[in-house]
């Protein structure tokens, strides 16, 4: 039996410990904001926060999350959109939007450790997240805007 917290709520899981956190979130809890893109931690669509830091839920097995606090896109802000979501909307980042929840989770993780990231910081942190529509230029602008708004 695995015990964990998802978006602040205590959960237990007694299924296949090899099940990736991604599919637990999507299929068992119905939290479909976390996306399936590659299953190999290559694209970042499945990014969630584990104790506040970005991880890839597609390669994190349920057996590994005992006692962890997981935050998904559905749980990042209790009161209206998060500052990063607001910046994303302001810059009109999304095209298809599929990867954007993972991008936003990664950006939140970045800003929590580096409130004023340089271009190099942004490249380093965000290059694990693929956007096939090619919104990188706007993602960079939105991260900078969020950093400014939060300052």
């Amino acid at each position, binding site marked *: 039996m695995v015990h964990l917290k998802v978006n602040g709520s205590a959960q237990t899981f007694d299924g296949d410990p090899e099940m990736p956190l991604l599919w637990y979130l999507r299929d068992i809890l119905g939290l479909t904001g976390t996306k399936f893109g590659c299953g190999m931690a290559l694209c970042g669509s499945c990014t969630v926060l584990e104790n506040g830091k970005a991880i890839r839920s597609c390669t994190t097995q349920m057996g590994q999350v005992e006692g962890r606090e997981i935050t998904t896109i559905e749980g990042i802000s209790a009161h209206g959109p998060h500052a990063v979501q607001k910046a994303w909307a302001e810059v009109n980042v999304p095209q298809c939007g*599929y990867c954007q929840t993972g991008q936003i989770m990664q950006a939140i993780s970045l800003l929590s450790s580096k409130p004023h990231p340089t271009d190099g910081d942004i490249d380093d942190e965000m290059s694990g997240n693929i956007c096939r529509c090619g919104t990188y230029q*706007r993602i960079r602008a939105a991260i900078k805007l969020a950093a400014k708004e939060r300052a």
Partner: protein
Amino acid sequence: MITLEKSSEDKIVIVNVTRRSFLQGALSASAFVLCVGKSPLLAKAATSTTPGGAPLTPGSVPTIDATAFHPGVFLGIQPDGTVLIVAHRTEMGNGVRTSLPRIVADELDADWSRVKVIQGDGDERYGSQDTDGSHSVREFFDPLRETGATARLMLIRAAAQQWGVPEAQCVADPVHVVSHKGSNRTLGYGELAALAAKQPVPRKEELKLKSPSEWRYIGKPAPGYDVTDVCAGKPLFGMDVRIEGMLFAAIAHPPVLGGKVKSVDDSAAMKVKGVKQTIAIDPFTPPHQFQPLGGVAVIADNTWSALKGRDQLKIQWENGAHAEYNSTEYKRQLQETARQPGKVVHTIGDPDAEFSKGGKVIEAEYYAPHLAHASMEPPAAVADVQGEKVVVWSPTQNPQGVQEEVAKKLGLKKENITCHVTFLGGGFGRKSKPDYAVEAAVLSKQTGKPVKVVWSREDDIKFDYFHSVAAMYIKAAIDEKGMPKAWLQRSVFPPISSTFDKDAVYGSDGEMSLGWNVIPFDVPNFRSENGKAVNHVRIGWLRSVANIYHAFAVQTFANELAYAAGRDPYDYLLALIGPGHTIDVKQPPDVATKYPYDTTRLRHVAELAANKANWGKKKSGDGWGMGIAVHRSFLTYVATVVEVEVDKGGAVRIPNVYTAVDAGIVANPDMVRSQFQGAAVFGTSLARTGEITATNGVIDQSNFHDYPVARMNDAPVSVDVQIVESTAPPAGVGEPGVPPFAPALCNAIYAATGKRVRELPLTRNGFA
């Protein structure tokens, strides 16, 4: 049994509601509804009941005059003033759920904040819903405007009637209200809805369309209608659809096209917790078209179990004839074919006579490999077969195609297939092919339950409808100034038509029109040719299709000629284009009339891009350079300048891209900017690393480690997009940014390093 989900703002979450029933519920008794003459939505609305159960007033729906309305449009105004507009085309990042309704809202003088966009189901009565070919705005611009103007006029007439004043004294001003000039009275659209609904539908000649200077939404930048929901992670996508009692399926597809299951041992798969059963799916009957590939499905109670169970299947395959497909040998064959005379596509003057004069001739060969679409959302679909009826939820560019293919496969009537269109996590042409939705329907029929089919990334890359591999040969006879007197070009590629005709070996007229039959250069003697090629994988269209390899060859060759002439490539390109004039690119007559190919516009975008890039101000070489390419596709003129830095190890950095676009009237400039920024990244992916190969018929690549696409740190840092202000009819936007990118990049690399790239991707040329 269908999970209805509403967001906190009571906005419709489209993924898993039956939109028709929503619309029935949404339309209250005195709603004003305009739609297509024979729209099922209207028919249902007319006979429906209110949410409280009271029947709708028969008069609430105007008499429909089919001649006054265009297909594909649905517009409703609620008594509370809410305007409902159906987006009947697919949203996949192209912005149609914003740009199309805003065209209606503009002519309606509606308050955009009071517009609700509803996604249309698949229905032939909407007209074409196949969202490809960069068609949406250009095809529906006029009908959408007329619909908005029709509703506005009926609202004005309703107000005039209510006030007992002449119609001419009433105006829709500022938004969402009709005002009476003489008395300062106003009535809101909601208040007028019931009376407007009783007005006769005006004839087209009575409509007064706005002049462009009066537009409030068209041509003005606007954020995406769904941006908040997208950023909130709402369940919008096909992959997100959840139906009560739904089972999950992963399918082991035949590794080689046309392969069949010889034997299967599913004992280990059945032991995986959550796995319910395995089901064999019949192989297709050639031609493969949009039929499922066949194979073995593992059905489970969650996605992970289905995927894990599939890995445990032990299948012996019978691979068939395509098991002899090897990319290295196939490339040699294509190149060999390209060196021989081919089928003539188009001739101008007498190129052979010019070549036989024995002057200076320059020739070159180009090659571009297969590509996979690799949209971020792999294919997925949910189907629920209940007797003679099927409901499908699918991320699809082609909902009517889903209806047709599911109907064909299950032997049902097309009208009994409902296709709800979800958001697409990228499409790029892949999701025009409904094979995965048919798989879901086949499996739902077999299990008697709703089934969700999920393709893994490996499925997506290995079993794509691949962008075609192509070999090209070009030669030119050069005069003393280095200008071409004769030009011959030949391309060879397995055609898309092989999807529908297993014996098809030549490119279709359509493929030839994508940058090959004619070139926009002033060359007196010209011939384009096409050689035969047999397909061994499924071939499909991918964002800008044959333009990708054709523009790569033509625009690289033009650059080679410039250097051979000792001239600046940009100056030389302008000389090649020559003074602006209209050229015959063999367009259909109606297209040629509305959208003549005017090289003045091509020249203009080249000038804009080059000026913005400060072309010629800095000397190329020593690992720095700029390259330029121009191309017209989907009726839009594009010029792209790429700036590169190449280090000693061959690592390429792209600090700047300057693109200029003439797409006629644009509906939403910010969306256009997005599309061209994205196209530069898409172009970067295919130019740097994009390559799909096969060994013994099996695709060698499988995921983003061996089919890399551009990431933030290797994408262009900045893409500047200039949009030409134009009153010309709207042209395509989603695709035209892609074709000029790769040649502009490769031309820049030549300027920086002196190394000519004639084969894509860059990784084949020692660059990374």
